[in-house]
């Protein structure tokens, strides 16, 4: 983990994709990859292929759904969108994340003050 670009944790990627779909509405895989790249500002490094693994996993859990459509430049593409169950899950995960990161942040600060 000491590499300059942090690797993305599996669960974290799932959450980021959920959030992306939640915020931007239906998107195809490439679009999601671009959005994450943009938001993370090159801090996170990922094989973009793993986005698809993540998408499959989310779909199997019933948190997102997909259908084939046409992209902005008239190409056939698969669009993913968040489901109702997905929104609930996102809310739960967000809360969890905030609580844990809050705790970890506090602990790390404590260490630093010593």
């Amino acid at each position, binding site marked *: 983990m000491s590499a300059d670009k942090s690797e993305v944790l599996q669960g974290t990627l799932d959450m980021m994709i959920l959030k992306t779909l939640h915020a931007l509405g239906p998107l195809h895989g490439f679009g999601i990859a671009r959005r994450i790249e943009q938001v993370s500002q090159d801090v996170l490094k990922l094989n973009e292929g793993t986005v*698809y*693994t993540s998408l*499959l996993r989310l779909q199997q859990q019933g948190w997102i759904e997909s259908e084939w459509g046409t992209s902005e430049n008239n190409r056939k593409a*698969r669009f993913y969108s968040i489901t109702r169950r997905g929104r609930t899950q996102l809310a739960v995960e967000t809360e969890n994340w905030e609580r844990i990161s809050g705790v970890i942040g506090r602990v790390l600060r404590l260490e630093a003050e010593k």
Partner: protein
Amino acid sequence: MTTWIFRLVSRVRGLFGQKQADSEFDLETQMHLQLLTERFVQQGMNPKDAYSAARRQFGNTTLLRQRHRESRTLLFFPNLLLDLRYGLRMLWKSPAFTVIAALTLALGIGATSAVFSLIQGVLLTPPPYQKPQQLMLLQTVRTDGKKMDSPRGWAAQQWMEWNEKVGSFQGIAGYGWTFNFLIRNDGSQSMQGMEVSKDYFRLMGLKTALGHGFDDSDFGQGHVKSILLGYEFWQRAFGGDKEIIGKTVRISRWDSSPVVVGIMEPGVRFLPSPGAAKEPNYDVNATVDLWVPADPNPKYLKDPYWNVVGRLRDGVTPQRGLAELAAIIANEGRAEREFEGFSPQLEPLTDEMNRDGRRILLPLLGAAALVLMIACGNAAALLLVRGLQRQQEYAVRIAMGMGRIGLLRQVLTESLLLAIVGGTLGVGLAVFAVNLFKVIAQHAVPRLDGVTAGWPVLGWGLGLAVLAAFFAGAIPALRAFRLNPMEVLKDAGPKGTAGIGERRLLRGVAMLQTALTLALLVGAGLLIRTMVKIAEVPSGYNTSRILTMSVTDVQSQSSWAPFHRQALERVAALPGVQYAAFAWGVPLTGNNWPATLDIEGQPPAAKESDKIALPMRAVTPDYFKLMGMTLIDGREFRSTDDDKAPSIAIVNRAFTDRFFPNSNSVGRKVWFGGRDKPGIQIVGEIANGRTDDLTQEPSPEIYLPLWQAQAFSKHLVVRTTADPGTVVVAVERTLRSVDPTAAIENVKTLEQIRDDSLASRTFAMHLLTGFSVLGSVLTLVGIYSVISLSVASRRRELAIRSAVGAQQKDIRRLIFGEGFRLIAGGVLGGIVLAVVLSQVLRSFLFEVQPSDPATFIVVGSLFIGVGLLACWPPARRAGKVDPLEALRYE
């Protein structure tokens, strides 16, 4: 939870439409790569570089597609087929390996599933009663906790009261053992039966196969009007003739002929009747031949001859039932002197039924499991060595992108295939073994006649195969799992060698096998020593050239004396017959007649439970001479000691030692049924014999003249001048000439009776010896291959050693040293293991402790010796390694 279900459903759906999903995924990735490339081109790369950069950023597409395929659907159905095909091909291509490994596993699986089949048939098959776990035998113990001299039942007055008052039981029924003969003109046939009270069939949940059960009018005093026949007896004696229902049959000792009203369902066996256990034909594990309705006789309500069984109510614990019962019985004891001093004990029926079977089968299962583990050890070693030869292949596979899990699966699939081949062979062996057991172990394992070598064997065999595959495959699979492809590809050593780590692992396996084998050998050794000790025990009587058969006159009481006198006279006159006698209580048959009595000089019993109970036997005059039991005081019986002469008895030495320690018995008196009756005079004393059981010290015995005691069932005992087999036909013909209806059964020599009485020990000994030989062979093969592999892997080192001057004998010593350390380590471990495991054999041992040092030393040193012999061929090979090899090597 719901998430989990969603995932499963979509995965099951994923099993279908694989192709479409694949092509859709390809489309998606291609588009992604295209868009990425276009983006890079826009950023100013040339198209070719842009495409490579896109691929780099996207990652390995093939791998991704594979991962998708795996997680899209249920694990690995498609891969499994591939693995299976591949595994089969590999096994086919190395037939020698396959045959050896499969045979090894077959031996272990065969042994274990054979014993499992016995356990399934004997212990796990429930008796044909409804909810048998609710059924409790109500047994009698002394309230003061002392051992009872002889078993005692309950009085009808008592159990009828319980039936009304005890709320924990759904019902309570009485039963007894009865024995009789179906009279036929061409030799009558014995029947063992059960007398049952009104509620018995309903309580046990038994149904008739044909006809109907008893109704209330069948119960009452006087002649028995109706009987039921047991299914097996009906098949045996009447050939399954359905016309028998409603007809009468002639039964000895009964004044009228009863009507057969029905046939009981098949497979119904006896409930224990401890009071009848000493009767000649008593066999609690037999199927019931005859059912007789029995109603308590108002005249004998206080006689304790009923055995009692009860069914607990749903959800009531035996403890509660017992507490309630004990309270009532304590009350009865206070009210009635004859009931005083006894308490109840609840024994679950299934526990009681399985006690003997469990005693012998569980240790044998343990032994079989050890054999299986040893076999798994060999198979694991073989697989591991093969895995070493294929390391290169594995490394290449990993380098090509095969996942670790995939490799693990591949290795396990191969061992599973192997185990299934072995399991199939093993099932064949097991079927053979079960049939063999049914022939040789009749007297050793109860209810063996109910065991069939059918589907259960197949089930157990294949189940064990899967288990074996896991055991044998685990180590090689883990090795493959942790394989480092770079290392392997870098130093490509010669084939058929192993690194130090693998050799250590293999030595560990062989050491473990040695330990397990030693435990088996110790068990066999202990049993062999036991049998030797038993053979050395002075029995106190002869067993050679003695023929016995149970002979019963089935006609009226008045013909008893003439029949037996005449029969004895004629048999004794036959050529080849030295002596002939009738006896009730032939040694080792378990027969005698437990009776309570008073003995001169002993204080009268204060309580019913304090009365002296001793085994009685009844014999004709020549019996002691015939058996070689020496008279040490007084006189023997004479043929004039009949029912007109004064009652007399002969006792044994143990009787005198117990009741007249500083005096003698001859001239003393004993009484049955009270001192006010005319007593029985003791006229002689004979030497002690181990009459009941060869492994028990002689106990006090009383013999009565048969002409006075007039026993119904008894043995004819004949001492012959030559092989007893030669006179059988003549003796039977002579008996029939006296009375053609006489029942002649159980023709056996006394030696056969002796063998039967030791049957469970003999069976355990044979089986354990067989298992330990099997285990030893497998282990020796294991040791041989480990040392061989070690020599093969160390060739270069050995060559260098001999190049720098080591002699052949030095090198041999080196190899022997390696073998010795392995074997000695295993033997030491085995001794520790054996000390623990041999405890389960305790009940089979006689004058040998489970931790008998002599057995341990002999077995241990023997195995070290034989084990070193197995090291000899590889050691010799090592000695011949050419020093030039060291130079030629690279």
